């Protein structure tokens, strides 16, 4: 049976939820692909989602050079989004990033996994809290 590809219902609902939030929020699927971030997040990352489109979350995240609040190195596996994807648990971290507009920003990131069923991981949500 061939049917058109469609995002999981949980991601569809998460996107609608995020698009109505004033809190910067992004969504990635179970493969670690960035599938959406909301308008509020545009002010943090410096570009609208329509310009960025879907892409690997790691690649997108790396472009902001995430580092510790004192500008020390932060290994990729310690990023909250990576922890939520790999370990499928919630994670929180204070970070310093350089946005696409060149501005250095201090943010806190909370990421958590989305499960449609106990054994069905469908993606993650990450929320950015501006300092």
């Amino acid at each position: 049976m061939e049917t058109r590809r469609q995002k999981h219902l949980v991601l569809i609902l998460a996107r609608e939820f995020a698009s109505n939030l004033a809190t910067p929020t992004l969504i990635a699927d179970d493969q670690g692909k960035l599938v959406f971030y909301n308008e509020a997040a545009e002010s943090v990352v410096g570009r609208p989602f329509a310009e960025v489109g879907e892409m690997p979350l790691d690649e997108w995240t790396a472009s902001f050079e995430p580092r510790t609040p004192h500008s020390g190195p932060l290994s990729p596996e310690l990023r909250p989004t990576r922890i939520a994807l790999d370990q499928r648990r919630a994670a929180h971290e204070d970070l310093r990033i350089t946005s696409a507009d060149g501005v250095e920003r201090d943010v806190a990131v909370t990421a958590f996994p989305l499960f449609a069923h106990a054994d069905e991981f469908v993606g993650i949500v990450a929320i950015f809290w501006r300092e």
Partner: protein
Amino acid sequence: MRVTIWGCRGSVPTPGPETITYGGNTSCVEVSLDDGTILVLDAGTGIRALGFDLLDRGMRKIHLCLTHLHLDHLEGLRFFAPLWDERVELDIWGPPSQELSLGERIARAFSPPLFPVDLRDVPAVVTFHDVPRVSWTIDRVSLSAQFVVHPGPTVGYRIETKSSSFAYIPDHEPALAGAIAGRSTDWVSGASLASGVDALIHDAQYFEDEYEERIGWGHSSVADAVAFTRAVGAGRLVLFHHEPRHSDVLLEQLEDRARELARGNGGHSPTLAREGMVVELP
């Protein structure tokens, strides 16, 4: 494939002179194939008459596919004659839940104070199945089920043979997850199920102004049903899950509105589901 409507009313049965044309029984649709395969979609009160008919036709193997367990989709099961016939094998498919099995949840409707006979005491051989996450086959029919926007675990079904395809999404509020028109169908609830089907039975419970007062109740306006049909490229739209307060006269106004909205779509005009209606697919 032959699709027969046995009940198309939403929420609660509505017998009476004002609903004679389109009927007052709640959701039940039969899908039958020339090879004798019988699929029953939902067990609203329409299943009662279907049950007698199936026994008259000598059917002994029946698959019942439930979209969800709201009462208007389950209340007829207790009065489904094949359930009370020991010669019948009944396979019941439905959405999984984290807490209780499908059988345990259905058994609640067969227990005091709701009903005098326990589900384990019915004569038919009943087997319960959670719908798989991938498509599966029953005889020569291919089915897929996916969760759709509606309160509580609810699926829609896509049913295909080699020559035709049909989707059944009787309780669905895709607009709750964002505007349908202009959005990639990747992000539209139910789109995979209904993509390009020959016929689509879809929730169209409300006029647009009624929907504005009932956002989040899990049902669609006629405009959203038409927009969904257009977005997924479905052929014939059958308007379903009629609002209990809508008389035959009001339903025909709703059908007129659907046809007005669908004008320019090409293909079939939307039609109201009606008890006894048969949709023949190649």
